[in-house]
Structures are given as structure tokens and as C-alpha cells.
């Protein structure tokens, strides 16, 4: 189907391709670049693209959380780890061609299998679908139906925080 480039739909489609390109390009940089700092920046680019995809999926709240938590917190934490560990100027060991080939074959096999599965499956939408996309409803669900998982997640974050402090500090005379 042809859509005029200057209609609202054409602009939306163009922006969608931009977001998709950002996601894939960022992922390729995150995996392919040799410099670990470039990997981190590629991850940030890819995550911003994923946030754009969430906007297209009608969920601005989750898109904002994606940028806040992933780009704002996790990427920065990885930056700290990069700066505190190996110096960037030290060249790493050369990549083994055979191992890269094996990894490519493994990832390609998973890709082919899942693509086949996606193509063969008949996706059926739920018979009755609610149209309630508001953030209020998400908050309501978080504190009623999913309140147990909500509390367990907060406990998990607390335990992870304590564990990270205990693991990373100078303990036991090291």
C-alpha cells in the first residue's frame, strides 16, 4: 500500500523506520565495536530506540520509564564500572575467528527457528478487549492485582543493593 510521504501517516511511518534503525544500529554498535565505551554508548542509543517503539505501542509511561531507568541509571552504572575496571588504552586479546563463527551460527539458528515459529503461528486477539490505556489504571493494577509482585520486587531491589555493596567493597583484607 502506498502512503503519501507528506501525509500524517507518511511522517509517522518515516519516524517509525528512524526508530527501528536507531534500535538496530545501537544494538550492532553495542555488540560489534571493539572499544567497551563505544559498546555502552551503542546500548544507550538502542535503548532510546526501544523507548520510541514503546511510544508507537501506545505506552508513553513505559517509554519514559525506559529512558529513566535504562538510559539514566543502568547505562550510567555500566559507565562507572568501565571507568573503575580495565584501562581503556590497554588492547584486548584478538578475537578468535572460530569462536565468532560459532556464535554467529548459534545466534543465526535461534533467529531462524524463532522467525519460522513467528511466521507459522496464527495470532488470535482476545475476544473482549478493554480500551483503557490510562496511567491511572496501571497504578491501580500495581497496588491491587499485582501488589505481591510489587512488594517482592522492592525486596529484591533492597537485597540486590545490599549484596552489591557487600560484594564490591574492600573486604577480607583483599
Amino acid at each position: 500500500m502506498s502512503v503519501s510521504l507528506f501525509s500524517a501517516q507518511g511522517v509517522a511511518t518515516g519516524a517509525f523506520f528512524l526508530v527501528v534503525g536507531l534500535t538496530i544500529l545501537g544494538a550492532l554498535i553495542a555488540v560489534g565495536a571493539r572499544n567497551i565505551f563505544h559498546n555502552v554508548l551503542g546500548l544507550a542509543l538502542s535503548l532510546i530506540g526501544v523507548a520510541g517503539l514503546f511510544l508507537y505501542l501506545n505506552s508513553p509511561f513505559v517509554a519514559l520509564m525506559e529512558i529513566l531507568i535504562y538510559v539514566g541509571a543502568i547505562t550510567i552504572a555500566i559507565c562507572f564500572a568501565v571507568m573503575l575496571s580495565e584501562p581503556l588504552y590497554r588492547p584486548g586479546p584478538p578475537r578468535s575467528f572460530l569462536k565468532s563463527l560459532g556464535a554467529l551460527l548459534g545466534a543465526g539458528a535461534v533467529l531462524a527457528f524463532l522467525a519460522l515459529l513467528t511466521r507459522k503461528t496464527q495470532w488470535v486477539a482476545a475476544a473482549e478487549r478493554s480500551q483503557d490505556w490510562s496511567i491511572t489504571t496501571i497504578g491501580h493494577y500495581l497496588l491491587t492485582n499485582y501488589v505481591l509482585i510489587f512488594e517482592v520486587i522492592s525486596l529484591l531491589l533492597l537485597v540486590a543493593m545490599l549484596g552489591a555493596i557487600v560484594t564490591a567493597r574492600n573486604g577480607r583484607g583483599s
Partner: protein
Amino acid sequence: MLIFNQLETYLYLALVLFAIGLYGVLSRRNLIAVLISVELMLNAASINFMAFNRFLAPHPAVGQVIALFIMAVAAAEAAIALSIIMAVYRKLKSINAEQAVELRG
């Protein structure tokens, strides 16, 4: 039918992202790079949840709640993994996975 209003578009995109992350986990030797690849795979799972939520699910809040939980677990996982990487670096002066083989007999 516009391309961004189809379920399959998002599924294939998440699939490509997952495969790139899997390739990174299998091929990289730097522990931080492995962690970055795992984050990519978690994001692919998130995209899948959100796509099913948008096109198939009976109530649109459920998938968003699950995506938020995935983010929280990913944050906890990143904190733990980075502290372990710091401890490994302090002990071995390297974050190469192939040099962290002290347990090998």
C-alpha cells in the same frame, strides 16, 4: 494497514534484537560486554510483552506492568553483576571471561 500497526513487525524486530544480544553473549570475552548483551536480550523480551499487550491482550495495563517489572529486575541484575565484575577485576586484574577460570581443576 500501516507497518507500525502490525504485530509481526514488532515480533520480528524483537527477534533481531534478541539474536544480536545472543551473538554478543556467545562471542564477547569482556564481562561488561556480556552484561550489555544480556540487557539487549531483556529489552527484546520487553518489546514482545508490549507488542502482545498492544495487539492481543484483554486488558492493556497488564503488559505494561510486566514491562515495568522486567526493568526493575534488570536494574537489580545489573547492580549485582557490576559489583561481581568489580570484585573479579580487583582479584585477577582482568575482566576477561577466559582468565576467570580459577575454579578449573
